[in-house]
């Protein structure tokens, strides 16, 4: 299939289900909320009682829970969940609670700034908004004139970034949407499910009905360490109702502690386990014959292709006991179809084989008939979002002789692979890229090999960013625009298509501080300067009221009813009504389109290279009190967790003489070293992996709390492989050893490697 056909197909499939919008904004914009409740104004009440309450939408992470901001004497004192919300209700997580300190962070970017020192040196002068925007317009026009539209590239994430995406789109560049969230995160799982189930089971949201499941399978999903309130609530509802939990993870994670069966798998071998399970389920007739007969395509091909994957073979590869593997799959099979095979979210692990791993999870789901039934994957309920005129732009992309989007067959869904942009910027091939705009994402702590990214930035004519906090990306920018935290602005209508659909609006809880301006205002100004027809409204309220009108609502009316309205959900389907949004209308166990693109139509086990002798695989994950690398400077969250710890297996630690609480430096296979970090010695991680919570070790001295606190996993990821489907960058293909008191410590190999798994070959250093 060609890129454009794929876009059409996906768009048709997904639009039918309301799961995503491919045009402009969509995949990563989930639901959410707004509305204000006229709060009591009683004075002198204790704590946050009696505060004025304004409904809005959280953006401490992308899950975007409906919230209320509580304001006393003009100051935001507390954030709670919006009681009208049918998902989180009055509850918010640690980060949601700490949004207060995003607003009042003294390190905030306060004014538009222009670089005065060398690029990356971090010296700026305060300038006016007009000058800052003129600089941006001038440079965008100049670069376009000199090198063509594709010399402009835009990296974006989250609500801050969505308006400006259309300004870039209007320049005619093909590089206007390059979500690190896709190419560093959900790319493989999104592609796997879009091509098997036909819709986006896992993108921003995971449409998995854990709350009504009788068994749940998590493959390296560490729910609880990774907090999205309604998702965690559904998981807990399932467990409370007696769902059995199977967790597969090289590390004893928070959910592993709650598991009925925990499988401490060798890192990099999950697909081997999944394929042996699929084979076992087929061979032992544990699958849902009715579902397979009526709703699946390609069963015979699948049956044949998984035959070689026996428990005996997989046990050796995965370093698990065959009896434990059997016990786990028997437990899951027994509860079908009410079994939640979690699709996973962050999926860019090893490059080759990532799509296959999630395709295997998808296949297992179908074999159990766990589709559109309580406890299985479910269908999102579309919530119609009214539109206002000219709130975006339709333009023809220029078609360069060689497009960066066509390097990989499934890349174009969300733009240009970030790794391709960085390569093109460094080499000038296949065409030069000379200007970057960055919005809502700290690319140096997000995209593998930040050293390459810094090299690329040095080659640019111009780079600007819009930021709330001066992280690494701001340090490297020529112009920084002071963005408003989500609590200081209107932006869009948010909808939630999950089990409790609703519609709500983000609105300011407090006015912007300093000279911060809302993302809409910035795009409105840029549109005027570029003479574009988009974003014509003076104020956000104007387009919001237009959008609300077809629903017989205004902002005021919506606020009068708590800022949020709900809709009935339609997540399940009777077998006779079930038609999947694929070409065939059936669940595709064999993906014809993959085959046409010379990719594996069914998952295969592809061994990812293991650590070279003396090294160990670096894995990473989340902590519940932080979001990516965005919250480490938040006063309250920093206080809960100022730095990360490196998890090291206890047996390994005793062999190399490292004790719990020791400080070490982590060195990767390419000689890159981390800031000093404390070691957590634990039996809760395999000896062939070390684990580092993500996002710490900021290299920006302007983040006064986060600077040099802990170690950055991203700055140790220098080897990455491209996923052959969409060019996403792998994150678990790097290997490290430790340095303690200046002495290099090689990591002994406690678990011998089976011959089927090759070793990573170190580059010979000169």
């Amino acid at each position, binding site marked *: 299939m060609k890129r454009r056909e794929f876009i059409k197909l996906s768009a048709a499939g997904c639009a039918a289900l309301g799961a995503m919008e491919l045009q402009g904004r969509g995949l990563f914009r989930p639901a959410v909320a707004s509305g204000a409740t006229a709060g009591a104004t009683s004075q002198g*009440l*204790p*704590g*946050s*009682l009696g505060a004025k309450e304004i409904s809005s939408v959280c953006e401490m992470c992308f899950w975007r829970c409906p919230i209320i901001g509580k304001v006393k004497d003009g100051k935001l*004192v*507390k*954030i*709670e*969940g919006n009681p009208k919300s049918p998902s*989180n209700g*009055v*509850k*918010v*997580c*640690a980060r*949601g*609670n*700490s949004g*207060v300190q995003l607003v009042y962070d003294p390190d905030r970017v306060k004014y538009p700034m222009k670089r005065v020192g060398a690029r990356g040196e971090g010296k700026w002068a305060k300038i006016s908004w007009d000058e800052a925007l003129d600089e941006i317009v001038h440079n965008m026009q100049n670069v376009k004139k000199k090198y063509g539209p594709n010399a402009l590239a835009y990296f974006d994430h989250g609500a801050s970034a969505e308006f400006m995406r259309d300004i870039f789109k209007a320049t005619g560049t093909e590089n206007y949407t390059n979500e690190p969230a896709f190419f560093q995160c959900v790319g493989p799982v999104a592609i796997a499910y879009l091509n098997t189930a036909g819709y986006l089971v896992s993108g921003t949201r995971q449409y998995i009905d854990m709350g009504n499941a009788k068994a749940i399978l998590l493959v390296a999903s560490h*729910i*609880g*360490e990774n*907090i999205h*309130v309604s998702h*965690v*609530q559904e998981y*807990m509802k399932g*467990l*409370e109702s007696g769902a059995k939990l199977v967790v597969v993870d090289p590390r*004893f*994670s*928070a959910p*592993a*502690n*709650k598991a009925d069966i925990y499988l401490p798998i060798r890192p990099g071998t999950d697909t081997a386990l999944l394929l042996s399970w699929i084979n076992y389920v087929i061979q032992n007739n544990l699958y849902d014959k009715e579902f397979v007969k009526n709703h699946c395509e390609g069963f015979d091909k699948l049956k044949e292709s998984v035959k070689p994957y026996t428990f005996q073979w997989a046990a050796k590869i995965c370093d698990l006991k065959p009896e434990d593997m059997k016990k786990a799959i028997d437990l899951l099979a027994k509860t079908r179809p009410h079994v939640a095979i979690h699709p996973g979210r962050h999926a860019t692990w090893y490059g080759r084989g990532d799509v296959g791993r999630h395709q295997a999870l998808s296949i297992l789901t179908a074999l159990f008939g766990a589709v559109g039934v309580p406890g299985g994957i479910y269908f999102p309920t579309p919530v119609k979002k009214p539109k206002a005129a000219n709130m975006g732009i339709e333009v023809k992309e220029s078609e360069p002789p060689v497009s960066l989007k066509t390097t990989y067959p499934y890349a174009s869904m969300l733009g240009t692979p970030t790794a391709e942009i960085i390569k093109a910027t460094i080499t000038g091939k296949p065409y030069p890229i000379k200007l970057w705009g960055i919005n809502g994402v700290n690319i140096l702590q997000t995209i593998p090999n930040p050293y390459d990214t810094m090299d690329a930035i040095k080659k640019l004519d111009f780079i600007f960013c819009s930021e709330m906090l001066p992280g690494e990306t701001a340090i490297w920018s020529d112009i920084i625009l002071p963005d408003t935290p989500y609590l200081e602005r209107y932006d869009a209508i948010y909808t939630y298509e999950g089990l409790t659909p609703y519609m709500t609006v983000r609105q300011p809880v407090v006015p912007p501080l300093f000279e911060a301006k809302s993302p809409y205002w910035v795009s409105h100004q840029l549109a005027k300067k570029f003479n574009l027809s988009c974003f014509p409204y003076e104020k956000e309220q104007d387009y919001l009221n237009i959008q609300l009108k077809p629903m017989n609502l205004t902002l005021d009316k919506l606020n009068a009813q708590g800022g949020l309205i709900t809709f009935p959900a339609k997540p399940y389907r009777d077998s006779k009504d079930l038609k999947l949004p694929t070409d065939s209308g059936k669940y595709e166990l064999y993906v014809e389109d993959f085959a046409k693109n010379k990719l594996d139509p069914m998952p295969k086990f592809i061994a990812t290279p293991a650590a070279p002798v003396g090294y160990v695989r670096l894995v990473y994950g989340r902590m*519940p*009190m932080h979001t990516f690398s965005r919250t480490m400077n938040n*006063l*309250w*969250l920093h*206080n*809960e*967790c100022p730095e990360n710890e490196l998890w090291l297996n206890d047996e390994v630690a005793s062999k190399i003489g490292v004790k719990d609480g020791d400080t070490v430096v982590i060195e990767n296979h390419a000689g890159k070293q981390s800031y000093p970090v404390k070691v957590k010695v*634990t*039996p*809760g*991680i395999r000896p062939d992996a070390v684990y580092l919570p993500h996002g710490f070790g900021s290299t920006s001295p302007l983040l006064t709390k986060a600077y040099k606190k802990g170690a950055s996993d991203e700055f140790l990821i220098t080897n990455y492989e491209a996923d052959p489907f969409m060019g996403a960058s792998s994150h678990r293909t790097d290997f490290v050893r430790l340095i303690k008191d200046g002495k290099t410590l090689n990591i002994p190999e406690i678990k011998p490697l089976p011959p089927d798994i090759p070793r990573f070959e170190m580059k010979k250093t000169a």
Partner: protein
Amino acid sequence: MNQYAMVIDLNRCVGCHACALACRAEWQVPVPYHRNWVDRLGPDKTPNGLSYTFWPGLCNHCDHPVCVPVCPVDKVEREFKNPKTGEVKKMMIAATYKDPFTGATLIEKDRCIGCGNCVAACPYGARYLNDKLDEPKADKCTFCVERIAHGEIPACVKTCIVNARIFGDLSDKKSEVYKLVHEKGAKRLSSKEVNIGPNIYYLGKKKDIYLLFEKCAPHKRTWENVKVMNEPSKRDTLLAALKKLPKFI
């Protein structure tokens, strides 16, 4: 006597720290102090298998609060009212005291002299001396009695995303906390050495309760090292009084 109590269910708790932060926001608790905390425990070996769990901690509002007798502030008479029956009772109290009708251990901030005795006495580390104020004062969890008085629930309970915190009156046999304590075996975090009747109870798998007790049960009789003068130091009393005077230019 009524006794407010809280049961924290470690089977539900995912260790997200929302409780600690909702409390901080509600009561403007300054960093680095806390009224409410989450300590992450493990993964470690226990006789019942590997455990990775949490200690969500707060003031235990103990049956025998060792922080109360160490308060050197002059006692005054106060009238207390039973929130349920309206019954009234008079009692002589220092600046920190145990409420006779709710069992909450509280601080009368106006009279606290900031000597830190109660902070040093608590074996759970549940109190802190707020030195970010003009005059330092002891501070700690109040079970949000101020919010309860206005028909609200404790801030930590309200925000807990998985309803792992169950709050109620332990003297009420119909309450959920009563059932969890008397029928489900929720446990107090105590030891042989320190057994002062804490009213925060923990439910969980054997391995998690084992690890919680191994890592977090108090063993030091901290209050025994606190020197209490029978009378408050004249100097402290005088200083406290002086600080209350309006400031002159």
